[in-house]
């Protein structure tokens, strides 16, 4: 089974501060994704990537940047954190390049609290 890890697992940040969430996968998947999970909204896609060097905007990209420096790593950056970004963030990787049968493998999640 795919191994996706996230760090940190918990983070408390101050409003206006910079936050970087990191994700690493060890199964050589091309696709990686960042979601946030909020009660009543389910999983909402923030950014995704087709491979090293690529980042694409998802459904709710405002206030977030992403970086994919390598096949294994995908970061989510909050340049100026706001309390509305308090949430649980999940990273996922997928195993189908350009194909629709892409099962997503999720990391354990990061709980972010912005005060």
């Amino acid at each position: 089974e795919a191994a996706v890890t996230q760090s940190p697992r918990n983070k408390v940040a101050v409003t206006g501060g910079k936050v970087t969430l990191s994700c690493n996968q060890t199964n050589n998947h091309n696709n990686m994704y960042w979601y946030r999970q909020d009660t009543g909204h389910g999983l909402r896609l923030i950014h995704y990537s087709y491979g090293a060097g690529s980042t694409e905007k998802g459904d709710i990209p405002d206030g977030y940047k992403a970086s994919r420096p390598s096949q294994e790593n995908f970061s989510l950056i909050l340049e100026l954190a706001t309390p509305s970004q308090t949430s649980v963030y999940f990273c996922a990787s997928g195993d189908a390049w350009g194909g629709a049968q892409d099962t997503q493998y999720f990391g354990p999640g990061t709980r972010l609290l912005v005060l």
Partner: protein
Amino acid sequence: GDSVTQTEGLVTLTEGLPVMLNCTYQSTYSPFLFWYVQHLNEAPKLLLKSFTDNKRPEHQGFHATLHKSSSSFHLQKSSAQLSDSALYYCALSEYTGNYKYVFGAGTRLKVIA
């Protein structure tokens, strides 16, 4: 645009009764459909996904049938167990030049004794 609708936010069932969680979708072409399950304080993980040859996927007693005519992929199980209590997401995936992966809002299933 592509979308997935799960009409029930919470479903509460007595152990042993049948489970049916609704999922309908809108898509441009012919998507693949998925069900993911998330237990408390865990990550979502794949439960089952649709096949290209119209076979009915099954896993851990759950099954779902893709009905293209009604754009539905409802999740079913004949007898609920306490351990089935979790959050269930329906999702679709479609590649039409651009890659789309869309999750529904999720349905929380609570099974009681």
